[in-house]
Each structure stands twice: as structure tokens, then as C-alpha cells.
């Protein structure tokens, strides 16, 4: 059987890759996809703990994370469509109207 630590390290690495995508990419859609990647890394950690501790709470938490991720993706993509319609760009650097 694979030790728990291996799953935790894999989840941490995938989470860090998602953070890298959020920091460096200049395309809002890819930024959203990187956020999905981070959520999935956390889900992997939840499932690993649920399996090794013998509790269903981890799997139920993943269920709720999926529901929230679906809502987040829908609202985020709607905001992206709305922003693109107004400004004709997906670059987050261009969206600094509130920056003084």
C-alpha cells in the first residue's frame, strides 16, 4: 500500500503548480483553470486522509468542494465574458480601474 505521505506530497506539488499558474499567466481563463487545479490538489489530500483515517467526513468535504468549485467556475466565467465584452481583453494587467 502507498504511504499517506506520498499522496500529501503529490497534493502539495500540484497545489504549488496551480499557484505558479495564477502568478505567472496573463490570461484570465488559464488563471481560473489553475484555481481548479489547486482545488483538485486539496481534494486529493482530503480523500487520502479520509482513506487513511477511516472517516467519511473527508469524502463529504470533497463533495461540497466540487459544488462550490462548480459555482465558482460558472460565476468566474460569466464575469470573464462580461469583462471581455467591455474591454476586449483577457489580460488581468489591463484591469486596474480601481488601482490608484
Amino acid at each position, binding site marked *: 500500500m502507498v504511504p499517506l505521505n506520498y499522496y500529501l506530497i503529490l497534493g502539495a506539488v500540484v497545489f504549488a503548480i496551480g499557484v505558479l499558474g495564477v502568478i505567472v499567466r496573463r490570461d484570465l*481563463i488559464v488563471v481560473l483553470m489553475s484555481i481548479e487545479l489547486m482545488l483538485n490538489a486539496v481534494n486529493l489530500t482530503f480523500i487520502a486522509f479520509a482513506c487513511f483515517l477511516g472517516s467519511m467526513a473527508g469524502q463529504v468535504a470533497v463533495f461540497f468542494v466540487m459544488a462550490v468549485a462548480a459555482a465558482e467556475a460558472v460565476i468566474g466565467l460569466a464575469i470573464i465574458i*462580461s469583462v471581455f465584452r467591455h474591454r476586449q481583453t483577457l489580460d488581468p494587467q489591463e484591469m486596474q480601474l480601481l488601482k490608484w
Partner: protein
Amino acid sequence: MTPSLMLFYVLGGLLVIASLMVVFLSSVVHSAMALVAALFLIAILFLTLHAPMVGVLQVLVYAGAIMVLFLFVIMLLNPAAVEPRRRFGWGFGIVASLLLAGALVAVMTNGEAPLDPVAATELFGSPETLAKSLFTDFVLPFEIASVLLLVAIIGAVVLAKRES
């Protein structure tokens, strides 16, 4: 090396490669395809962790619904293929995420980890146990999640419709 360990190495290596492809590929559609691959690999990892129901949900909800939504938006907007490189972004981002990965690994491997899975019964992770847990211990969060999804539906329609 046991077969399960070998399977984990193969899946984990492919998952890291697919995640890196999501970040580093320049085309948005290619990134989306790499993300689909990563989501499928995570679903298979769920299956190896006695969570078949969540794995099926992962494929249905993520790789099915959410990624179709992403692809629809990509095709609807048809963003410019080339995005300009940020001046300082890549070096700073790589250093920051390497630091974060190191810190996370150090914190997570610090504790006393249980070596063997407790939940090796075949019912663990089945739809019955998940539903029983969902409708007894987690009824209130379940209802709140349904309200959240309703709010998301209405919000998406309001945000994305054209003003007339």
C-alpha cells in the same frame, strides 16, 4: 516495488506533467485539454484510495460539466493566441511556488502519519455510505450547497446577459 506503488508513481508523474502543461502551454485550448487529463488522473487516484463514488463524481462534474463550460467560453471569446510575457513574472513566480511547495511538503510530512489505511472494507466510499453520511451528519451543509448553486445559476444569467 509493489504494483500499487508502481501505479502511484505512474499516475503521480503523469499528474505532475499534466499540471505543468496546464501552466506552461501557450495555447488556451491546449491548457484546457491538459487540465482534462489531470482531472482524469486525479479521478483514478481517488479510485485507488477507496473513493469510487467521488471518483465518478469527479469525472462527471469536473471533466464533464466544468470543462465543457470552459471550452464553450474559450470558443465564444476566441482570445488572441499570443499573450505578452510579464517582465518579472516568471522568475518571481517560479521561486515563490518552489518555496510554497517546500513549505507545504515540510509541514505535511511533519506529523505522525498512519501507515495503513483503516478503511479497507468494501462498503467504504460506496454511494450508500456517502449518501448516509451526507443525509445524516451533513444535512445543513447539503441544503446550503443547493442554495449556493441556485445563486450561481441566477448570478451567471444576470452577469452574462447583454444589457438592452
